[in-house]
């Protein structure tokens, strides 16, 4: 091994150890009594110091040396860890890390030798050394005293041994140094050694089982010496026998310890690609073997199938890493941020062992860090505020990770102030993200999720960690880039939880394969909700039209339908889009928070597919996420469900379009039943207005209709009432003008008129037929498809369009105000 190799190994190992140091030190600050953690910290620094002394990195050695001195005092109990010492030690870790970086880049440990840091570290070990001088002697006393007074039952033999006791007290000191370097360090190694050494000694015939029992009993009664030491002290065995037994044990332990080797990530990536190819070949083989009548071939291909599947799983596992790897830095992050803004925060981590693909781990590291910082900086309140609010002084940040349905869920929750919906609403309106009207209509949840929009920050004051308005939107985009979702829930005063849902891996995904116009397309399973098949007969009635837009009622909710062949502009082989007379296959998909039904020609099967990215020539095509090779060797495209939804306008890029839906949502969350007037406006289409907007229902004979300029009017209660014909308003634009000006046909029947007031003006809306007045919750909506309509809902089991009165007035060009009549009419209605 050349020297550069040694240096490289040293760097890799030291960097890993340093990450652990951050964690251990922060843990120690909370629990300074944890001797094992302290020993671990000490050992790491000691190793770094030793190795860099050997490699000739003197500056690094100097820094590590003063750190080690301080740690020695801590370990020996002469000092207790306090925040000041922790900060200094963390500073040392940073300095060491910096120097390691230098070494990596230049081969030298850099120019800086951190005199201030070293001085601080030195000062810290001397300032408190004076008052800490007493504890070691006093702490030593009880240890040696206990075994003597403790065991009452076996008092006699022990009492006889009293004289050797002082020797025993001295003996460990003499014995200690020999086994110390090896076994003292790692507690994990020490424990089994202690447990088994008795057995081994009995086995070797040097001691009786009863003696062991006696010594164990002494341990139980508080003797902290090791079994071997007690036995020696009791004069039952010779020191040499104990040491020999210990060596045997350690050798055994080394043999049974799981072996690990370091493997380059590149190699794993290459393996992954090869396995991907193998999976493809396997798929092809399976397809061939299914068509060939050959039992031998089929048996082989079945076995091949099993092996390939298993191999794929195992190789995937090599790239899996526990999420704890990236969480490890969070205690430090939280500590630094909390200290910076004067907060007290405790971090709790549940599910550290949850595994994720390496690529995904890397991709979510930054978003998670941001969320954690955000929680501490903005979520958790200052200690005084918390105490005043009757909460614990110390804030709590909980990270939770768990697997669920082939995905990984990561939750970041704090018990802080929670998000102020009102403030977000205000801010959103102020910034022009939504209009005041929209803002008022939005549900609490929608309001909260506004913080994921670009340029949105509610931080009262901008701090250096977060609150610059470039955070949450980046978090959202980064998570979505890897096929994940972000959701936020918050209770004012109780805290906020951000939930991130991400796939396990990106390289091989389960997908549904569908056919459209003779080509196959793969739909990632994560976007898939359910499949619906409508037989020809059923399809004819089940698919309804909202002004030319097909919808399907899925358990009472309107599901907009998107025809894949139409969206992709495919040649319509035999399945003309829109002609609904064959069985219809609907793939119900989730895009963002919206659902839609994708109509395809055929649904084939689910398959594990290997995702291959599209080359730059096709980067502009947003409807595809990648490509994959199918079992028969042909290439199939993987649909990008979000891109497709955007193309089909299911998910709007602007927020404008969803306003109506939001209005409806608001009505729904309120859960109020409204009374609607149902009528038909044009042909058989059902329409409705809330009854509250109506003043009176009237019927006018056609002879009472007069022309005022180009407007239809009638005399009504001593006033002139403009008449707006709904049929004309809904007419296509080019016909509208002429229809508007056409005089009433003398032979037509009486007009059904809804007399309404809108913002002080009265007018009559002429409809075709008045149907009913119903009390209903307009709880099923889809977006409007024409100008005069607010949204569509299911009222009385039928799709009904709710009219947008202001829009109608605008289209009709009615602007005369008849305020007097308005009040009169309203009075009559009451």
């Amino acid at each position, binding site marked *: 091994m050349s020297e550069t190799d040694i240096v490289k190994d040293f760097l890799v190992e030291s960097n890993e150890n340093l990450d652990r140091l951050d964690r251990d030190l922060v843990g120690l600050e909370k629990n300074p009594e944890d001797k094992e953690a302290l020993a671990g910290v000490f050992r790491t620094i000691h190793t770094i110091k030793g190795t860099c002394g050997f490699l000739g990195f003197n500056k690094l050695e100097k820094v590590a040396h003063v750190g080690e001195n301080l740690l020695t005092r801590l370990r020996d109990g002469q000092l207790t860890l306090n925040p000041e010492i922790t900060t200094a030690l963390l500073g040392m870790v940073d300095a060491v890390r910096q120097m390691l970086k230098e070494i990596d880049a230049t081969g030298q440990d850099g120019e800086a030798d951190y005199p201030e840091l070293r001085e601080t570290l030195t000062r810290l070990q001397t300032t408190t050394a004076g008052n800490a001088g007493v504890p070691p002697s006093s702490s030593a006393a009880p240890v040696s005293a206990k075994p003597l007074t403790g065991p009452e039952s076996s008092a006699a033999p022990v009492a006889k041994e009293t004289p050797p006791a002082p020797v025993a007290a001295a003996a460990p000191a003499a014995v200690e140094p020999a086994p110390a370097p090896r076994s003292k360090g790692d507690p994990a190694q020490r424990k089994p050694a202690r447990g088994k050494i008795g057995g081994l000694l009995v086995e070797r015939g040097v001691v009786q089982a009863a003696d062991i029992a006696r010594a164990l009993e002494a341990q139980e009664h508080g003797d902290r010496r090791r079994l071997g030491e007690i036995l020696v002290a009791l004069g039952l065995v010779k020191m040499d026998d104990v040491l020999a037994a210990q060596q045997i044990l350690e050798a055994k332990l080394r043999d049974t310890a799981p072996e690990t080797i370091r493997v380059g990530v590149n190699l794993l990536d290459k393996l992954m690609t090869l396995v991907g*190819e193998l999976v493809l070949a396997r798929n092809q083989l399976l397809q061939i073997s299914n068509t060939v009548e050959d039992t031998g071939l089929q048996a082989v291909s079945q076995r091949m199938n099993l092996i390939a599947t298993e191999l794929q799983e195992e190789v995937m596992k090599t790239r899996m890493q526990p999420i704890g790897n990236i969480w490890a830095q969070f205690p430090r992050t939280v500590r630094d941020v909390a200290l910076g803004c004067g907060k007290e925060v405790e971090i709790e981590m549940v599910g550290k062992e949850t595994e994720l693909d390496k690529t995904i781990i890397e991709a979510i590291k930054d978003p998670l860090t941001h969320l954690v910082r955000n929680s501490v900086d903005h979520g958790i309140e200052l200690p005084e505020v918390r105490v005043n609010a009757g909460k614990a002084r110390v804030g709590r940040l909980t990270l939770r990770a768990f697997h669920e349905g082939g995905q990984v869920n990561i939750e970041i929750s704090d018990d802080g102030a929670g998000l102020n919906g009102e403030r977000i609403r205000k801010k959103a309106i102020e910034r022009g993200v939504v209009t005041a009207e929209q803002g008022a209509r939005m549900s609490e949840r929608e309001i909260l999720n506004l913080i994921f929009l670009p340029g949105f920050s509610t931080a009262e004051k901008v701090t250096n960690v977060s609150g610059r308005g470039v955070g949450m939107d980046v978090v959202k985009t980064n998570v979505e880039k890897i096929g994940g979702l972000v959701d936020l829930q918050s209770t004012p005063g109780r805290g906020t939880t951000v939930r991130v849902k991400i796939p396990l891996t990106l390289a091989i995904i389960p997908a549904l394969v569908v056919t459209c116009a003779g080509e196959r397309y793969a739909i990632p399973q994560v976007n898939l909700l359910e499949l619906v098949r409508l037989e020809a007969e059923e399809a004819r009635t089940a698919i309804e039209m909202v002004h030319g837009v097909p919808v399907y009622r899925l358990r009472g909710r309107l599901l907009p339908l998107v025809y894949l062949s139409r969206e992709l502009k495919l040649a319509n082989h035999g399945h003309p889009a829109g002609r609904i007379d064959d069985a219809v296959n609907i793939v119900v998909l989730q895009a963002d928070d919206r659902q839609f039904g994708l109509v395809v020609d055929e649904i084939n099967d689910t398959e594990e597919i290997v995702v291959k990215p599209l080359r730059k*020539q096709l980067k502009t*095509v947003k409807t*595809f996420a990648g490509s994959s*090779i199918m079992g028969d060797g042909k*290439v199939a495209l993987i649909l990008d469900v979000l891109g497709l939804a955007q193309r089909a306008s299911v998910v709007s890029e602007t927020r404008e379009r969803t306003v109506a839906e939001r209005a409806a949502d608001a009505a729904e969350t309120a859960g109020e039943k409204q009374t609607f007037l149902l009528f038909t406006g044009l042909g058989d289409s059902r329409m409705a207005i809330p009854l509250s907007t109506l003043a009176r229902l009237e019927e006018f004979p056609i002879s009472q209709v007069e022309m005022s300029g180009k407007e239809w009017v009638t005399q009504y209660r001593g006033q002139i009432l403009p008449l707006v014909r709904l049929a004309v308003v809904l007419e296509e634009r080019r016909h509208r003008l002429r229809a508007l000006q056409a005089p009433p046909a003398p032979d037509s029947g009486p007009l059904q008129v809804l007399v309404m007031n809108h913002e002080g003006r009265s007018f009559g809306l002429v409809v075709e037929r008045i149907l009913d007045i119903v009390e209903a919750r307009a709880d099923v909506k889809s977006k409007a498809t024409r100008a005069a309509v607010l949204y569509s809902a299911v009222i009385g089991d039928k799709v009904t369009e709710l009219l947008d009165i202001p829009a109608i007035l605008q289209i009709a060009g009615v602007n005369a105000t008849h305020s007097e009549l308005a009040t009169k009419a309203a009075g009559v209605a009451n």
Partner: protein
Amino acid sequence: MAHTSQFCTFYLDKLLFGVELKTVQEVIRSLEVTQVPLAPQVVCGLINLRGQIVTAVDLRRRLELEPRAAGVPAMNVVVRSDDGAVSLLVDEIGDVVEVEEATFERPPETLRGTVRTMITGVHKLNNRLMLVLDTEKACQMTDTVAAGQ
């Protein structure tokens, strides 16, 4: 014989084109192409080249030539590009020719438009001209090409 270089030649609408031999990965007969809906017109689709998915670019379209007559199989010249292998669809494959630098000449000023960016020059062969194609440029989808879907 100062500097010579080798070119892989092919025909497109009776024109002789050449690409540097070292950029060519392989030449294969027509393969099954998976169409990519909504893609720029010059992209013919995707082909499976022994487990590798390769984009097929219709050179006739890219070079603004007449479209290939229906039913005439194209040949694939697979070239290495910055972004992985790309297959260029051509009419017919010619010989590998070795040319000297002396026979090279810049394209005439009268050659304009997007085609000029892709044709770096001309080698004057004995009986005809060989147009030198910049494969990197040919594989690039400029905005105008992408928009012309």
